[in-house]
């Protein structure tokens, strides 16, 4: 949960549009609801896409966050 919030928060700091996709579903990475409904548990494969002036930085930041360990239990 806080993991999804972290991703949405990070994505929202960029001007570019950022998307996450898994299987055939694609969601707005700035939306916690989108991320939650992707229902990606630990270990799932997710593709990060971005389009805009800071697209490279955005993808890098989101990927880095995914790779870092999410501390799920409060």
């Amino acid at each position: 949960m806080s993991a999804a919030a972290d991703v949405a928060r990070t994505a929202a700091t960029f001007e570019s549009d950022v998307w996450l996709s898994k299987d055939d579903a694609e969601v707005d990475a700035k939306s916690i609801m989108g991320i939650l409904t992707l229902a990606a548990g630990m270990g799932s494969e997710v593709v990060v896409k971005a389009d805009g002036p800071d697209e490279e930085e955005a993808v890098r930041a989101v990927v880095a966050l995914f790779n870092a360990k999410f501390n799920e239990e409060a």
Partner: protein
Amino acid sequence: MSEREVVLSGIAASPGIALGRVMVVTRHDIDIPLRHLDAGEIEAEKKRLVEAMGRARDQLMETRDKVATDMGESYARIFDAHVMILEDKGSLAQVMEKIDGGYNAEFAFNAVFSKHERVLWEKGDTYIKDRAGDIRDVRRRVLSNLLGTRPARGDLSRIEEEVIVIAHDLSPADTAQMRRGKIMGFATDIGGRTSHTAIMARSLEIPAVVGLNDATTRVADGDFVILDGNRGRLIVAPSEETKKKYAEEHERYRTFALGLLRYKDLPATTIDGHTVTLSANIELHDEVDSVLEHGAQGIGLYRTEFIYIGREGLPTEEEQFLIYKDVASRLAPDPVIIRTMDLGGDKFMSAFESPKEINPYLGWRGIRFCLARKDIFKTQLRAILRATPFGDVKVMYPMISDLDEVLQANEVLEEAKRELKREGHEFDDGCKVGIMMETPAAVMIARELAPHVSFFSIGSNDLIQYALAADRGNEKVAYLYQPLHPGVLRLIDKTIRVGKESGIWVGLCGEMSSDVVCAFVLVGLGIDELSTSPYVVPEIKEKVRSIYFSEAEKVARHVLTLRTASEVEQAVLEKMEKDLPELLL
């Protein structure tokens, strides 16, 4: 409601005992009005929604700040996430679109948010379902603001009498409002160990049992119940005897710190010098602290299912290795028995389509699943083996019913060892292997199984259910589920005797080990190890330290000749009342 004592079993979410009157907090499904708007009403309706969402946001922020002060920032973050769900732009746009289409705010908001919930619920293993619960909490909050009703649970903080709250579900916000001392404990129909409500209850030290399915329909306001957060039980209409037993345990729990200090470092040795190993059952690796605090001598059952559920895809060998290594090294030199995954039954990982089985408890689970998916099984065995240099790690296979299963599983283990050797990994070649004795067939062929393993651990919950062909979750037949049934005791006795003859030790890791009367009989039958919830360890240890093994042995021999569970129980209680009254306190 019920005249006779009824024991409902759920998930032990937060430890502790509570005895008292029930307050049922029903959450009737909110009635969602449907109204068609005229074009002229649309803007006003949107404004009404925005205002309701604003109030919901203020309430959440208020709870957030209270939680941050009372419990710390990490718990407060749960509510930050709720606020983010509330403020989700995409969802709001969808709701507004529906209002533009002429639907009223309640209907529009509910339609969009419950759809999100459903998506999560349907994808769901227990962990993902708990996240659907987060969306539901937000949805209900906004709806009650729109409808002008108080959030159903708004007044938990105002409860003035001491009660045990029984609810279909509680949100973390509900839980945060509970005042310790007023709300003695709570039980819910739904929810899992990883729900935010469970996590908060543990932090607030309020005893809690979740996942009871239909507790709200079994009790009424004012009913007397016992909530056992140590064992995950809710006892409705308890008998005088049960009340007495729990009142004492409750008192003991209050003076817990003292009890712990007194017994923590002492062995579970009877007055006449017979020692039983008391170990703990865990399912999350962060429960290790509690194992150590309660003076358990190792982990008798590490359920590894939680490593597999709540995620998509399978955990890698490396991920598992790090977890097992951590648990093993923190427990060292005490042993850790890692049970290979027992999926199926009531747990299934999301990486697999849960097969729809008419009778999952007799279906594709435990070792049956592992042997069908040797790739997954071997990865787990490799991870376990690699953890062996860091402590005393043992492996245990679940759901054995056939010799061939043990031989095949051992073959996979050997293969894992050969691979690790080739790759230059360090591990203990002599890592001990045991099996769960939970099917009557396994007990009957115990002599044939024994040469291939180093220990037996009786999984009494399943053994009782399989031996008596009674599902204790089914209220029509739950009365048949009797741990002290002579049929069950004789199966246990046979397992222990075969263990002794074959020179291997025998433990028991089901709920029987945490019941004083059952534990007395088990010690008398010569069980080598009892593994219970960590919270029960001090109590059982104290009991073991106050009895004579010779007496327990005599009683156990005698009850094996009796005809019914009630005869057995009566015989044991009589003996205890006569010679060991302190045991029943």
